């Protein structure tokens, strides 16, 4: 800017730049005419006027505003003044406007809000994926479990039951699923442990201790132990004649033979077994037996019942024996059965001597701890 501002100004006969600028900005037309007539002031006045003409409008328009920002501000102001809603809608709009303004003002807040929204939306989906699908599988498992009533009875076939009864007794054998029957592994392990405790590993031969030879009950016990060595083979580790009922067999032998056949039945996984039906039908048929022997027979009936092999008549015999009906333990050589065996051997004079046999004691003790 040329010229030197002076305190005299127009009044002193000389126009300073400050005076000229004031004339232009304040629009004092009469003074402007005088300044234009002044030879010294006119060029400076033109320069200043040119500058203002060029830049005053850009000055008023600067800076450029983002689109719609003016309308947004006006709408916001009017909503809070002349067009304000006083009800809950107004309150809601106020909150929404505040949130919107804050979100528009802060990129960090926008990112945080987006992350929060994503979490809120993703949470139910994740919950559905994590919880919903496994629950559906669990329901399916429950339905399968409903069909498996006896987990320890490996697939007792319905049809072969009729084949099993090669010589069906008068009573009709019907499956009765009451208590679990030990599976082949449990029966085999219990019997095998008992077998290892026997004196020697071979079948008693002629010339062995007389007790072994003379007692059918001992032979049946040994056979029970040996049954675990080759399951499914009735003539394997012991002579097959052990399974045949003797003409003079008493209740003790009948009970032990039935237990042996049930062992084989369980070890074979429920295969049809000749003689089992007959052996079961013979249980409890002699009312002259001692109560201890009849109790042992009742335990065999109960086990057969747990296997689904008992019939209605045998059940009535069980009650007649004085035995308390109930599920027998899964262990075929459990404590109650061993106690019943001791009592039965004790009650039969011909078999009482067997109890003194050390191998039998070892067998009974070992059978009591199959683990």
């Amino acid at each position: 800017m040329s010229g030197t501002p002076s305190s005299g100004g127009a009044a002193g006969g000389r126009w300073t730049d400050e005076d000229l600028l004031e004339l232009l900005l304040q629009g004092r037309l009469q003074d402007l005419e005088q300044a234009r007539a002044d030879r010294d002031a006119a060029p400076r006045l033109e320069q200043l006027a040119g500058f203002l003409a060029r830049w005053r409008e850009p000055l008023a328009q600067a800076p450029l505003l983002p689109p719609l920002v003016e309308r947004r501000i006006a709408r916001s102001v009017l909503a809070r003044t002349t067009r304000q809603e006083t009800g809950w809608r107004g309150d809601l709009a106020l909150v929404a406007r505040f949130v919107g303004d804050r979100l528009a003002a802060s990129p960090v807040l926008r990112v945080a809000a987006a992350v929060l929204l994503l979490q809120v939306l993703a949470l139910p989906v994740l919950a559905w994926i994590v919880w919903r699908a496994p629950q559906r599988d669990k329901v399916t498992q429950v339905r399968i479990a409903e069909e498996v009533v006896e987990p320890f009875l490996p697939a007792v076939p319905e049809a072969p039951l009729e084949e099993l009864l090669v010589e069906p007794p008068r009573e009709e054998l019907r499956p009765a699923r009451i208590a679990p029957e030990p599976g082949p592994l449990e029966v085999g392990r219990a019997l095998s442990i008992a077998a290892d405790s026997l004196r020697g590993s071979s079948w008693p031969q002629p010339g062995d201790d007389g007790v072994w030879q003379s007692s059918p009950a001992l032979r049946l016990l040994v056979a029970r132990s040996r049954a675990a060595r080759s399951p499914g083979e009735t003539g394997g580790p012991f002579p097959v004649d052990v399974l045949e009922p003797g003409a003079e067999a008493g209740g003790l032998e009948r009970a032990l033979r039935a237990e042996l056949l049930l062992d084989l039945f369980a070890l074979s996984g429920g295969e049809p077994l000749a003689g089992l039906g007959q052996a079961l039908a013979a249980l409890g048929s002699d009312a002259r037996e001692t109560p201890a022997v009849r109790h042992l027979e009742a335990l065999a009936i109960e086990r057969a019942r747990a296997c689904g092999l008992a019939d209605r008549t045998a059940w009535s015999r069980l009650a007649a024996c004085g035995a308390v009906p109930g599920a027998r333990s899964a262990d075929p050589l459990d404590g109650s059965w061993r106690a019943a065996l001791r009592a039965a051997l004790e009650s039969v004079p011909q078999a009482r001597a067997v109890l003194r046999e050390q191998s039998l004691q070892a067998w009974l003790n070992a059978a009591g701890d199959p683990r």
Partner: protein
Amino acid sequence: MKGTWDDDRDPLAALRRGDPRLFEAFVEGEAGTFLRFFLRLGAGLHEAEDLVQEVFLKLFRSAPSYDPRSAFGAYALRVARNSWIDRRRRRGARPGALSLEDVDSPPDRPGASAIAHEMDPSLPVERQEALERVSHALASLSPAHAEVIELALVQGLPYAQIAELLDIPLGTVKSRVFHAVRRLRAALEGEGRPSPEDLS
């Protein structure tokens, strides 16, 4: 201001009479004016938006005690300036007590220049460049100079009104406007810089 809001078009006088239409027209017509006003003084965009809303709300709430005999335009600008001073005071600045340093040194004022890059694609490139240059030139001025440029050149207020508004003597207004224009001219039309006509 884009329009004249004094006398029979006074928005607050109309509000007192129960007619909101003039106030609504004022808000819709002058939101951009006040927004640019604060941006030119050095506010950020969002701060300027807050300030504009604050000014309108203050005006609306002052309607019951408003004296219709005063000039509404000057009154509105006073409210806007006071809002700006309050805001700066809250930020730790002291606009009411300007020192020589305040007058002479260009402060850190992002305002107009900070949003200069947000161009309107419908405007010619030359126009956009001119506006951008103005924004940068304004940003180079001190707060005191920017203020008098705003009031004298942009708003076109009489020197006496500026003196009253800024609470400074008339002579100081005259001198400050002159120096502010000189600095602005140097920033805009310094050596080698084209004028808007050269650009178009």
